């Protein structure tokens, strides 16, 4: 909407668009939920063979070494064709973390399987007693000889029960103050003895996440990333990038199209009060696109956005929820239907996106936690 492609970017966009049109399976397009691994991973591996699975990774590690603008072109084209979201924990989290902080051996062992799509990763941050107060996490890792003994529990682990490996924050210095100084960053093979994984069904009807129990699990000491007790810094190093990624305006634009279809089908588009609120939401979608474009410009010119990335996450996720509220309003009494609704204007899935988007203001730090961060670190308000 605001960015203009350079000639190179335009050529790249055309190439991506053509390839996606020819290769993305129809069954994977326009899904409002994430397909299970059996359906999704073949598509992942297809992108991998094309060389496009990791646009943001350096070439030496199997990525494309793409510019930020090329990455955005890619995201836009994937969204445009209705491609499903790929599992992000390997590609967007542990991959970049290992590239920045990992040993040569860790990179050699773990990066190629992520690129190939032969290994799925899970993130082990939250615990039953450590959600918003993440630094209170209690899963213990005790160094005994050349192994850590890990004991405790992780929860809200996205795709935990489909995953082969987990990167986790664990407590290695129980008495350390501040608490953040007693946390380390560890790689765990989820097929190790002593691990139990239970899927958790979500309100959206899927089992996207799970809980993971560790009963004195032996983890080789070489699976420590970075220095002992330096895990907090590593976990936070890439958060800004994650917040920017989840706020791509394409998701909001797609939500807007669903609302328009539903509102025309149900006739509510003729109601001036509905039109007014849809106009307000549409204008905020343009504002999100502007904010995103502004953030990309800044990120291209300096190292990162810093804590300002929190406002993009707040604005983007709350806007998505506002859009899905308009969607169920447009659907009227169809809103509660579990299955997509067939209309004269096309099939519209209403309840699934509405339920799915509840999580957007919770994961990656809730909107309230983001507001705390902005208040302290951007606005410099006192403690």
């Amino acid at each position: 909407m605001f960015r203009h492609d350079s000639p190179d970017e335009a050529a790249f966009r055309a190439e991506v668009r053509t390839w996606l049109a020819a290769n993305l399976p129809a069954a994977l397009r326009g899904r409002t939920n994430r397909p299970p691994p059996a359906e999704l991973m073949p598509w992942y591996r297809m992108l991998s063979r094309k060389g496009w699975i990791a646009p943001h990774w350096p070439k030496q590690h199997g990525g494309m070494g793409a510019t930020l603008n090329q990455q955005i072109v890619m995201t836009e084209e994937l969204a445009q064709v209705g491609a499903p979201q790929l599992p992000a924990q390997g590609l967007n989290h542990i991959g970049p973390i290992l590239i920045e902080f990992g040993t040569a051996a860790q990179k050699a062992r773990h990066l190629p399987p992520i690129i190939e799509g032969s290994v799925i990763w899970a993130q082990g941050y939250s615990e039953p007693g450590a959600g918003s107060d993440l630094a209170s996490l209690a899963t213990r890792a005790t160094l005994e000889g050349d192994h850590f003994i890990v004991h405790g529990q992780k929860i809200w682990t996205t795709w935990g029960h489909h995953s082969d490996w987990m990167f986790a924050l664990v407590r290695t210095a129980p008495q350390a103050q501040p608490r953040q100084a007693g946390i380390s960053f560890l790689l765990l093979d989820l097929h190790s003895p002593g691990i139990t994984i239970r899927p958790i069904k979500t309100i959206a009807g899927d089992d996207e996440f799970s809980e993971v129990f560790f009963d004195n699990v032996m983890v080789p000491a070489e699976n420590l990333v970075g220095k002992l007790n330096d895990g907090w810094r590593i976990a936070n190093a890439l958060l800004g990038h994650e917040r920017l990624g989840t706020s791509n305006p394409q998701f909001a634009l797609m939500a807007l199209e669903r609302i328009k279809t539903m509102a025309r089908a149900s006739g509510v588009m003729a109601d001036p009060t509905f039109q007014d609120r849809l106009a307000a939401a549409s204008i905020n979608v343009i504002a999100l696109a502007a904010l995103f474009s502004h953030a990309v410009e800044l990120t291209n010119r300096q190292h990162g956005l810093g804590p300002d990335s929190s406002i993009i996450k707040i604005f983007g996720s709350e806007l998505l929820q506002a859009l899905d509220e308009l969607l169920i309003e447009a659907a009227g009494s169809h809103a509660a239907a579990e299955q997509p609704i067939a209309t004269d204007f096309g099939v519209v899935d209403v309840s699934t996106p509405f339920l799915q988007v509840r999580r957007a203001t919770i994961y990656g730090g809730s909107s309230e936690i983001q507001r705390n961060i902005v208040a302290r670190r951007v606005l410099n308000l006192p403690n």
Partner: protein
Amino acid sequence: MELHLSSEQTLLREAAAKFAAAAGPKVARGFRRRDISFAPEKLRQAGDLGWLGILVPSSAGGLSLGLTELALVLEQAGRGLVCEPIGLAAISAAALAQGHTPHPMLERTMNGAALVVPALQEDAHCNDLAEPRMRAADADGSIRLTGTKSFVCADGADGFLISAYGRDGPALFYVDRHAQGCELSATQTVDGRKLSTLRLKDAPADVVPSRQSSRNAVEALTDLALIALSAELLGVMEKAQEITLDYLRIRKQFGKPIGSFQALQHKAVDIYIRTQTTRSLLYQVAANNDPYRIDPALAVAVKAKASEDALFVTEACIQLHGAIGFTDEHDIGLYLKRAMLLSSLFGNAAAQRRRYVNLADLTV
């Protein structure tokens, strides 16, 4: 989030900030309920600095700059509660510069010796911008306008740019303040300035042509006005935010600075989200649109958001100040009142959304 500016743009912003710092709440108070609610010599100073000709092509003596530069100056004007109508004068100059030969009023408008302002609105909700009821009649080779314009910032004006329906549809015309058949009646605004009703009866006028490459001159001027007002609104809300954040850090209750309380912190962040999103939207639109060919849906979106957010922000700033914020003595109320004025002009947020519904085809 900072803007990425060239060194010339940074210098321009610094100059505008200096100009605005010389204004501020105290000066703005001094102009309340005065005959002319700004200082004509300050308008000339803005002219000397080139700002009134900021969009005017260099061939016509202007700076030939873009919407970003216009916004940078007006954002500072908003911050400083500047009373001189720099934005309205600058966009009028841009309109006067469109023809093959510049309008005779262009030079004096650009140097601030004369003030020309747009008079486009006919009703309170701007339902009429594209279809004015003002009539332009061609009689004996001269054009005469008849009709009424409302909510005109006529204070100190020497002439008006008026939309009227002529032989070939809506067009833009210039009418001199002292022309025969031109009558003004003013009402006070909340911030101590004036808005006028302009009644024309067979008033002599001349056509202001549109730029060759551009759309209708009326639409071009309208969209420029929306951007100009939005930039000023952004400055108003940013300064109100700054004053309020300072207060949250200093004011103590329950033995602590009130800015340490989470309820107030989250309200402060909501204010910040409004100012930042308006800022990104305004400057992304400014950077990607030619002043004479602004995408009307984007201009409308910017004014809708800036109007709504400026009221949200300045209202919240009063609330965060508590009782002191409700006094005339405290400056924070001045920002609310300026936001009330600017958000209401050329269509408030709701009026812009009504236009957006059609522009973005949010229809059956």
